[in-house]
């Protein structure tokens, strides 16, 4: 691989990390809201929760579609291997998305809203659990030989994958709860605040345990953590996560709604950065690197020239969309 080709592969690794972060943070937020809706007793409040994401959930979900397509273009080997190896979790995730998407759109037309809000909650939970198991399986590593996947239908299921899944659920729940703190008031907001605090403390314990476990699993990660500059890219985000956590807890206690949301977002972002920083340039542990998986230089270059123009536009109109739908959502009220 020529140096220019390797640089392109690195650029695409960073771009995909950005899109992955947008997917996990933004869609994580409305999946979190969906899971939390399973724990709310009143239909009016469930409707309010759905209304809080009604204007943005679809764009949030679309980041995953963008991620899948760009991964297909930039690293076709990873795309093919990961999706066929994770066949069942991917199918379950898609089933979850179907349930979530249809229920949120058909909710306002329904005579019996309970069915649809339940489908919204269960679909969100299913999609999140499947994503967590899939992510866990990828981090645990796929049994590969000469670019072929050697595991069977259930090889993705492991204790480590379940642990990562719990961690990701925690992360989604924190984002969802923080979003509800920002977008609602009264009783629902108070519930969301309590949930956010509980989940934040869960993450405080779970994140370090997961990091230690993954280092035990992959010796190359430990080596990375002991040497410069790997030490910096993997541990600096974690060092920043600590004050961020404190700030989140303070905001929750003082009812600073906006601060609570932004610190929850930042905390998740830092955890992700640490993850991406530790494993680069490996994309599928233990051995598949970005350089082996990259598409041809002309493909990477052409795609980059298109996406470099479109991505800033996408971010701009997504931000505009959030701006238009800013403000609190009242109980029982949809958008009009």
């Amino acid at each position, binding site marked *: 691989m020529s140096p220019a080709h390797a640089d392109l592969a690195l650029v695409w690794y960073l771009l995909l990390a950005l899109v992955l972060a947008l997917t996990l943070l933004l869609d994580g937020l409305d999946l979190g809201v969906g899971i939390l809706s399973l724990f709310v007793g009143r239909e009016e409040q469930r409707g309010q929760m759905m209304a809080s994401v009604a204007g943005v959930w679809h764009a949030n979900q679309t980041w995953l579609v963008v991620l*899948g397509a*760009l991964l297909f273009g930039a690293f076709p080997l990873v795309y093919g291997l990961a999706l066929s190896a994770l066949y069942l979790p991917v199918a379950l995730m898609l089933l979850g998305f179907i349930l979530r998407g249809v229920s949120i759109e058909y909710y306002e037309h329904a005579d019996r809203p309970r069915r649809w809000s339940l489908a919204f909650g269960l679909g969100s939970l299913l999609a999140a659990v499947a994503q967590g198991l899939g992510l866990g399986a990828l981090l645990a590593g796929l049994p590969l030989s000469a670019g072929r996947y050697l595991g069977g239908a259930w090889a993705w299921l492991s204790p480590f994958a379940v642990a990562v899944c719990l961690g990701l659920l925690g992360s989604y729940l924190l984002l969802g709860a923080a979003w509800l703190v920002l977008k609602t008031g009264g009783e629902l907001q108070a519930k969301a605040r309590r949930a956010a605090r509980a989940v934040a403390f869960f993450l405080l314990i779970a994140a370090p345990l997961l990091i230690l476990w993954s280092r035990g699993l992959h010796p190359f990660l430990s080596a990375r953590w002991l040497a410069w500059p790997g030490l910096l890219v993997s541990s600096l985000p974690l060092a920043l996560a600590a004050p961020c956590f404190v700030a989140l807890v303070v905001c929750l206690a003082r009812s600073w709604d906006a601060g609570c949301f932004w610190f929850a977002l930042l905390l998740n972002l830092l955890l992700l950065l640490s993850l991406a920083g530790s494993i680069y340039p490996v994309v599928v542990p233990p051995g598949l690197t970005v350089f082996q998986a990259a598409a041809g230089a002309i493909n990477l270059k052409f795609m980059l020239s*298109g996406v470099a123009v479109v991505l800033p536009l996408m971010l701009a109109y997504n931000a505009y*969309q959030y701006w238009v739908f800013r403000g609190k959502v009242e109980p029982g009220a949809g958008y009009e």
Partner: protein
Amino acid sequence: MDLVFDSTLLSRLQFALTTMFHIIWPLLSIGLSIFLVVLEVLWMRSKDPLYYRHYRFWSKLFVLNFAVGVVSGIPLEFQFGANWERFSVATGGFFGSILGFEATMAFMLEAAFLYLMLFGWKRLPPKAHLFSTCMVALGASLSAFWIMVANSWMQTPAGGHFAGGKFVTTSYWQAIFNPDLPWGFSHMWVACLETTLFVVGGVSAWYLLRGRHREFFLKSFKLAVLAAVFIAPFQVWLGDGSGRAVAEYQPTKLGAIESHWVTNPPGEGAPWHALAWPQPELQRNAWSIDIPYGLSLLITRSFTGQVKGLKDFPRQDQPPVIIPYFAFRVMLGAGFGMLFLMLWTLWLWRKGRLALDEIGNQKWLLRAWLLAIPAAYAAVETGWIIREMGRQPWVIFGHLRTADASSLLATGQVASTLVMYLLIYGALLGVFLFFAWRLIKKGPDLEAVPPYYQEAAS
């Protein structure tokens, strides 16, 4: 037994099921989004609340349809990797980059502006709202463009070569604008418009037949007829052009569509088998009703032009014949049926029979418009059957066989997701029909107050 439970075959069945189900929805998403732009512009120019109320009515149907389209479409993108891993790797990033353009340029545009369009009436100034409607329409059509680029490249791969089993792109321009793209995209995009206009016309005809909101729906009915005047003949012309392109670039597909086995010798014309019973195992037709010189005329525009027959190609390179042959006849019948319906309606219009107090008596015309709804969908489905089955046994025509493209999955895995999709897509169709039927029965809100221009209207 091995053949029946082969995981490649199951993956093919699953892909056929999911794409045939999915394609139902983009038709209206693409067509209705353009119709909504037309309605909003008409409203902003005339300030007539009638157009606003039309917008609100059709946009409700649009959302019900759009939601199913989105959730049924997402699995497709992931199926390439999950079920067709060897295909995904063999396309060497080209195919994926095209899907990447679709997702970033089209899909996100649609996703973001849809909600500004639906929920933004009181939050956006009038021009920003119109802009949102336009962006949804642009996103929907751009999405169709990129998907057709990907599909047409599989029909007529260009812009590179295969080395070591992988496609190496040399020219993106040639790969994107491959020989099939102009015909493939325009035929499909116009199919979206045609289906939509017959849905709008057909739903309007239902109200006219029932005598409900006659004035309101006569408006949309006439708009549909006007659109049909341009679109129905144009689509027939595009279909003819597509057929001739197929003859040039995918002669085996043409042979299957027409059940044409033997190349006509020089100086003789190839007949068009209007109706026949193909016997692929014997490489002939059991019987056929022929129109002499028909196929030569259709394809080469001359009485004795040469049209290659299927027997010129080895058996292992021939596609299935029976299904494409009959599917083509269904598509042809539906396409010409819609053309004649347009001409019939136009004739009655000229005689003044579409006037408000006359239209209710045109029972057979209105019933025919109702029938045109399933006919339009049938034309699209059969068109895709022809396009995809006719490409077999190749997934990338001439380069990669379908049998070499699938993931090496256990049959149980694929069988379980196939059943899952059957159940969930069946449920989705049921839910859509239930809610759409309820929406139509309820009818439009004729009292809806427009958010802007109330002063001008009152």
